[in-house]
């Protein structure tokens, strides 16, 4: 739940899974399998089936998904968004499930944690790296003559806001 103060009014945004998913109307899905037929991730990740995820949400088995890692397999290619004949958009359903899983204090796969940590540390998903060139030379931005990577100026404020818009729960879990 989030509070915003706008012109003296307090607005409350509740992000419960039910609300998020209702908007996406998974109940309209008639299981045409188009999403699973074209899904990038489904072809390489064995148990990732967008139509099945929508069906499970529709049938009320969201908890199963929230507690499993499979929802983090989506490749964000947006093909299901584009071609779903009922505008259900399995991608958005998966994102809502991911959000809910974070809200319930579950830890996402390690790489996501790393990225989130980095956002809270430098404002980006990772810090500038040393890159190995073809000649086995390690180069950095500076050595290539590139200007320094910009960071949020008022970092404390930025971090505070990031936590406010949804990283709060994650912070407790990953203990930054």
């Amino acid at each position, binding site marked *: 739940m989030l509070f*915003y*103060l*706008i*012109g003296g009014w307090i607005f409350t*945004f509740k*992000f419960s899974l039910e609300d*998020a998913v209702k908007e996406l109307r998974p109940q309209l899905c008639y299981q045409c399998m188009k999403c699973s037929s074209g899904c*990038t991730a489904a*072809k*390489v990740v064995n148990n990732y089936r967008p139509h099945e995820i929508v069906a499970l949400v529709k049938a009320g088995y969201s908890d199963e998904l929230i507690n499993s*890692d499979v*929802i*983090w*397999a*989506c*490749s*964000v290619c*947006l*093909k299901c*968004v*584009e071609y779903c004949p009922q505008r259900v958009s399995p991608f958005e359903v*998966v*994102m809502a499930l*991911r*959000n809910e899983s*974070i809200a319930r204090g579950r830890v*996402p796969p*390690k*790489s*996501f944690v790393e*990225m*989130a940590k980095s*956002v809270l540390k430098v404002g*980006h*998903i*990772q810090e*500038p*790296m040393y*890159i190995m*060139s*073809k*000649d086995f030379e390690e*180069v950095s*931005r500076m050595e*290539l003559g*590139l*200007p320094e*990577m910009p*960071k*949020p*100026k*008022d970092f404390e*404020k*930025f971090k505070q*806001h*990031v936590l406010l*818009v*949804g*990283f709060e729960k*994650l912070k407790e879990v990953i203990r930054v």
Partner: protein
Amino acid sequence: MKFLLYLGCTTATKQYGYELSLRATLPLLGVELEHPKDMNCCGVPMKGISKFYPYYACARIMALAESQGLDIIAPCNGCHLNLTETIYKLKLNPLLMSAVNELLKEEGLKYTGKAMVYHPVEILHDKIGIEKITSSIKRKLPEIPVSSHPGCHLIRPTEFPRPETRDGPLKLDRLIEAIGLKARDYPEKYECCGAAILPYSPEAAIKTAAFRIKRALAVGSKAITSLCPYCIDMLDGKQDAAKTITGDQNISIPALYYTQLLGLALGLDEKELGMSLNMSPVEVLLEEVKV
């Protein structure tokens, strides 16, 4: 034409070749790039963690551009989509707009919807134009078949205005032909490179990239080009890994940024274009191009 260069995370932290070639080529075509002092991540990979973080992050980026009175070039497909989506959704939803601005106010920023966002493909094709490019190049590159990989987010979703559509010829293909190369279609060019599966399962992601490379090789392409740091990261940087995982030693194709090819046509040195940072066998292509 002056734009604020919003690099995003991938380009700025490891895909230095893209940044170098952008900074080298665009000014030659009359585009001035301003380097921002203050920037943050656009939030694409964080969408799963919080629905609202990308709105805040993108609104912050747009507000920063607005405070400088500039439009943004976002060279990353993901950033470009997320920024466009945020602009679109904030304009539709005044409540969201005011909520986001309430946060920005504390940082002395405000987004009103004035600043716009462009992808390099739009800048090159729509703003600069094919004609200007053909007249500016120093030498035409030989007619080598090259496949373009526009990347998912450049064409999808059609819900928001996207730079490319799969209905007609791609702008990227026209740009390839503009510098003398031959655009070669391959069946999976509208597919995903698999970058976003990387955090979940690197193996699955690399397999996906390997599929694409194999298809491009099958139609006889001599190189793959794109304007997305994620796509090139997968198609260029992961070729060795793909060989190991799939056991197919034939996976080897030069993969590089279109701006790097453009730079060659504009007579720039390969070093300036950061081509030594490409992991794929670009030297094979370079040799053919130089002849």
